[in-house]
């Protein structure tokens, strides 16, 4: 390890590895550190990812893809099923990954691009001088090191401290986190071509149960509930109840737990000499909980902006605003829309969820986007979904255009 780099990236998840790869490809000297001794393990993910978006970052390889999914089946509390084909599901499904391998492959990609990678190496603080972040303090095999750099990237996930050290309060309120538990199971007997979602406040208050195929008869069976609804009963207990009821004979081969930020865009993700990416920047989707793609998108933008800023010898928060602007005008828009949907969704009663599902029984789903689906729901349930109206400005405008 050297004592100086252009960029130090803290955390080797998808956000950190893509940032490191992008910056290294542009010729910067990059250090990528990961506190775990094994990248990607333990898994904190259901591993579902959109094919189209994944391909923008890496060519799919069979060794880290467990299942190729055709569509989703969503069940309302009374069991009414809505089936969405792949092109309809808005790309939220597509592949189910093996994150333990996928994350390591992404880190390897950054190494191939020239980044130095150190595992079992934890950032313990920032070096801050004259209000500029100038490097990181590290703990590596029980030894402490100071490493200086021009830009620090906080890609340190849900448990991020990097932003806080630089004065950005990233703490999440209970209503802004989904608390999750998951089993990798054999013997569920699900159709491996589909992802399953179960809604209902008894089963998963302000959240849902998911079942994602993992190939070879395995499946990720998991649950996320809103933090504000957790406490008396934990996500783990909800999951045990679901599984005992639905798959009493299935076997549990792995347990995963974790939290997903569902706060929507936070106020600030940059400081002098610092950018936050991925879950550290709370960039996961507030309605689906998906964060892999957003993490990779943000990582690419941050890597590019790091290069631009360093080549102009200006890493001030003003210069790094290019990152804020670019992510907020791309993934940020979707995050903001999803936050509107989340705020409506978390207050639905089971009866309302059933009503929504029933209202879609006669809708033809052969060629709809997720927005079209929401619009169909909106048209049939205007009163209940009135708060969503802002999402359809463009849809409505197009329909008006038609009238002319």
């Amino acid at each position, binding site marked *: 390890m050297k004592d100086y780099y252009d960029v130090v990236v803290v955390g080797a998840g998808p956000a950190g590895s893509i940032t490191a790869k992008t910056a290294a490809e542009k010729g910067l000297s990059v250090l990528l550190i990961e506190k775990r001794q094994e990248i990607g393990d333990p898994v*904190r993910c259901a591993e579902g990812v959109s094919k189209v978006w994944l391909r923008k970052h890496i060519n799919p390889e069979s060794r880290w893809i467990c299942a190729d999914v055709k569509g989703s089946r969503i069940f309302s509390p009374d069991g009414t099923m809505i089936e969405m084909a792949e092109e309809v599901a808005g790309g939220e499904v597509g592949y189910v990954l093996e994150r333990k391998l996928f994350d390591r492959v992404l880190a390897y990609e950054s190494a191939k691009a020239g980044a130095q990678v150190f595992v079992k190496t934890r950032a313990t603080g920032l070096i801050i001088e004259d209000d500029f972040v100038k490097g990181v303090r590290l703990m590596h095999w029980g030894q402490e090191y100071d490493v200086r750099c021009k830009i620090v990237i906080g890609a340190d996930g*849900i448990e991020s401290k990097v932003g806080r050290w630089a004065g950005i309060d990233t*703490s999440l309120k209970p209503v802004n986190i989904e608390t999750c538990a998951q089993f990798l199971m054999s013997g569920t007997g699900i159709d491996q071509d589909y992802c399953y979602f179960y809604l209902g406040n008894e089963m998963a208050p302000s959240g849902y149960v998911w079942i994602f195929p993992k190939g070879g008869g395995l499946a990720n069976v998991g649950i996320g509930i809103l933090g504000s609804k*957790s406490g008396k009963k*934990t996500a783990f207990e909800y999951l045990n109840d679901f599984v005992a009821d639905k798959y009493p004979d299935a076997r549990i081969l792995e347990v995963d737990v974790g939290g997903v930020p569902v706060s929507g865009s936070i106020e600030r993700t940059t400081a002098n000499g610092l950018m936050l990416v991925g879950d550290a920047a709370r960039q996961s989707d507030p309605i689906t909980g998906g964060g892999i793609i957003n993490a990779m998108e943000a990582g690419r933008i941050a890597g590019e902006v790091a290069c631009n800023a360093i080549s102009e010898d200006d890493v001030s928060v003003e210069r790094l605003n290019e990152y804020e602007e670019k992510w907020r005008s791309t993934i940020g828009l979707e995050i903001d829309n999803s936050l509107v949907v989340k705020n409506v969704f978390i207050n639905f009663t089971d009866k309302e969820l059933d009503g929504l599902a029933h209202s879609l029984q006669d809708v033809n789903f052969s060629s709809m986007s997720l927005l079209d689906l929401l619009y169909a729901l909106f048209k049939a349930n205007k009163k209940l979904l009135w708060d969503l109206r802002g999402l359809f400005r463009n849809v409505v405008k197009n329909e008006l255009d038609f009238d002319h």
Partner: protein
Amino acid sequence: MTIKVNKFKCGYCGACVGVCPAGALELVETWIEVDDNCTSCGICAKICPLGAIEVSR
């Protein structure tokens, strides 16, 4: 004032660290460390997916 993390239950996922308003928690590889800034507010215990945290006031 502090919390007690049952290390036999903890899944070291870091969710508690993400919600701590005081920044008092840290996920160090496979265990949670708590520093003096803990106010025993209990948010971490509330959201822990495994119920591994107990608040002592």
